[in-house]
């Protein structure tokens, strides 16, 4: 309209990233797998935040969901089963300037990786951690996971899972230094997108449990929530996220929940008749390990040398000479 022509654009070294910019190889998840929706949501976040490809890292464990980094064109780290979080912490502690995301399965996070999960929450480094919770082992072909519902028949629980499932939300809310906990369902993209965006801006460890459908092995698992939207309790708040009219029409059971209210958050995740969707808890004030350990100042080469010499001098042995007569 104003006759701007491309030649007069002088910011030629800046690149705009669109959705395709973030697409890595073609996803090999089953058709209808909830992981596809999570991938789309994350790519949207990257585009909306214009995250430079080379400043962004996706770290995963092992599982279907952990193929995530292959499908992003950012840096990727497909790690060890259960160990995605320590790998991500290793990246973050040395390179706090990178945006670090973690994708892990429920077996990954809540079974073999439980110790790492608990301590990653406590370390509270600025990382967005997504738990793709399909309540089953997908990649190894349908074994029970700690989050599988009681009674679920799987290949390792032919008569049904024995125990009540582990609740990743109440566990995380119980860990010292917890600073961000949210719950979303992959089939409600609006809530998922908004929560992931909030998690990205949270200064600390943001834990998002994503209910994820696995149509291949447990196609009916989340049906109660899908067929009866009133089983989901949408949490909105001016300090949390707010839903569009469209969403509010379908998901009528909504509630104001202040994410700074830990007591209420704990009650919400223990509900048996409804599942909360949204931000359960957020406290930006919790100290961060990556911040606490950051170098406070820059040291000159001479200062470093002097520091090393003082340390080594403590162990030095004086050579025997004629003069000291030893």
């Amino acid at each position: 309209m104003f006759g701007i022509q491309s030649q007069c654009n002088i910011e030629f070294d800046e690149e705009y990233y669109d959705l395709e910019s973030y697409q890595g190889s073609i996803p090999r998840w089953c058709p209808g797998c909830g992981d596809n929706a999570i991938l789309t949501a994350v790519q949207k976040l990257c585009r909306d935040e214009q995250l430079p490809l080379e400043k962004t890292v996706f770290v995963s464990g092992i599982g279907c969901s952990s193929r995530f980094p292959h499908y992003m064109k950012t840096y990727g780290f497909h790690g060890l089963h259960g160990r995605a979080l320590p790998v991500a912490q290793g990246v973050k502690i040395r390179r706090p300037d990178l945006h670090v995301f973690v994708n892990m399965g429920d077996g990954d996070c809540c079974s073999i990786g439980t110790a790492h999960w608990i301590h990653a929450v406590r370390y509270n480094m600025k990382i967005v951690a997504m738990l793709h919770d399909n309540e089953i082992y997908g990649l190894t072909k349908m074994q029970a996971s700690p989050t599988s519902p009681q009674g679920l028949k799987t290949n390792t629980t032919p008569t049904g899972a024995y125990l009540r499932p582990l609740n990743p939300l109440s566990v995380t809310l119980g860990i010292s230094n917890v600073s961000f906990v949210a719950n979303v369902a992959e089939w409600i993209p609006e809530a998922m997108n908004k929560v992931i965006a909030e998690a990205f801006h949270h200064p600390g460890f943001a834990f998002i449990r994503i209910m994820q459908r696995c149509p291949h092995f447990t196609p009916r698992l989340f049906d109660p929530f899908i067929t009866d939207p009133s089983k989901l309790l949408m949490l909105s708040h001016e300090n949390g996220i707010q839903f569009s009219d469209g969403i509010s029409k379908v998901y009528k059971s909504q509630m104001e929940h202040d994410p700074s209210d830990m007591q209420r958050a704990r009650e919400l995740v223990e509900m048996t008749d409804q599942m909360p969707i949204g931000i359960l808890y957020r406290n930006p004030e919790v100290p961060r390990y990556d911040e606490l350990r950051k170098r406070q100042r820059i040291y000159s080469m001479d200062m470093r040398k002097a520091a090393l010499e003082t340390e080594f001098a403590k162990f030095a042995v004086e050579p025997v000479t004629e003069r000291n007569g030893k």
Partner: protein
Amino acid sequence: MIKATKQKERPKPFLFPEFCKACGRCITACPKNCITFGDTINPKSGLMPVQIDMELCNGCGLCLSACPEPYGLMPQVDNHEPIDPKTLFGEKNSTASKAVRVPDEVLPLPDMNPLIIKGTYASAIGAALAGCRHFFGYPITPSTEGAELMAKILPELNGVFVQAVSEVATVNMMYGCGGAGMRCMTFTSSPGFSLMLEGISYMIGAEVPGVFVNVMRGGPGLGNIAPEQGDIKLACRGLGHGNTYAVVLAPSTPQEMLELTMLAFQLSFKYRHPVIILADGYLGQMTGKVNLPKEMVKPGLPDWAVFGDEAHRANLICSIELSEQDLEQHNLHLMEKYDRMISTEQRADCYFCDDAEIVLVATNTPSRMAKGAVEELRRAGIRVGLFRPISLWPFPIDAFEQSISEARKIVVVEAGNGQLEDEIRLAMSKAGIMNYLPIEHIQRYGGVLPSKQAIVDQILAKEVQQ
């Protein structure tokens, strides 16, 4: 007045210096500040016991109750020797009968039609027939199907199947269950086996039986789920820390998966020692005809078990030996066991080795390709044989020496980078076979198996050259 005399009668503390751990609890407890940290090392304990200034002491006794050592601080008495509990509490002999070893029973099985099953299934059935009623494991391809079968059959047999939270949990559950004298096993695959090694070292140290079926897959790292033989060095040379070895059995057919699993349980209890079965991803998945054995085992109960009844009450399972002398003795004891395994547990299969000029060495699935190659090369008039070690540790060196007596070269066929070959070289060197025959090899990696044709071609090519 009465007070004063009473105070005088209170016994002052007496310190047994060799029992004082210098923890300092008495120092904090003493209201008169008469106890200080010592500055001389006690030659018996190697620690520095505290010192008490008896002049200042008023015998309040607070240090006595603060001291956690049964013989650290005692009230002053005439006899300053540690008191035998018997004299304190009277002799109290256990009324429990001594634990006796209940031997296994062998029960006949009716004739059964052969089964057509996968290798992992055959191994699971073998375990059940060997009396194993306890399974602990963590899913990992390509071993999980064996575990899944156990999940179905063990509850029917009044046994337990537990999907542990990880391989680390798995091996420690086995440590516990084996320690109770029970037959237990796991199915795993390479990355999972790596995680179990720490626990296996403890089991060897504490002499606890257990059977580990490692269905090897492509590595290193996550690698892939195709067959490789990259864990031979782990099983034969690297069972965790310490001087650790264990019998390692390598089946090559579903039938052997069954038989060797049964044997593994027998050896595991005979030696009170873990046993490793190394299979490969192809063998685990491959279906084949399996004849069921004529007998099954009803397990007994060892006398050393921490079984949880009166008779076994005094038993203790541990792998800690604080004194160097004791630990050396324990290692000597383990080494004596290793020697017995080396002299009695070598197993091998020799195929056309008697007159062989070229001896192929292969195990697991690659030995099937090698066998095919032997047949084809024999038809071409070349005198080739196959030596197939069934026990990888101990390496069947005695049979091997015989197999190569007519040979002019050895060709090692393996899905790996020479881990089997290293075992052969080490075994020959230890056996003092000094003039090495030339050793060649045919290797594939990453889940690719050496093909029969590749073996035939390489051998023909070299023979034509000569």
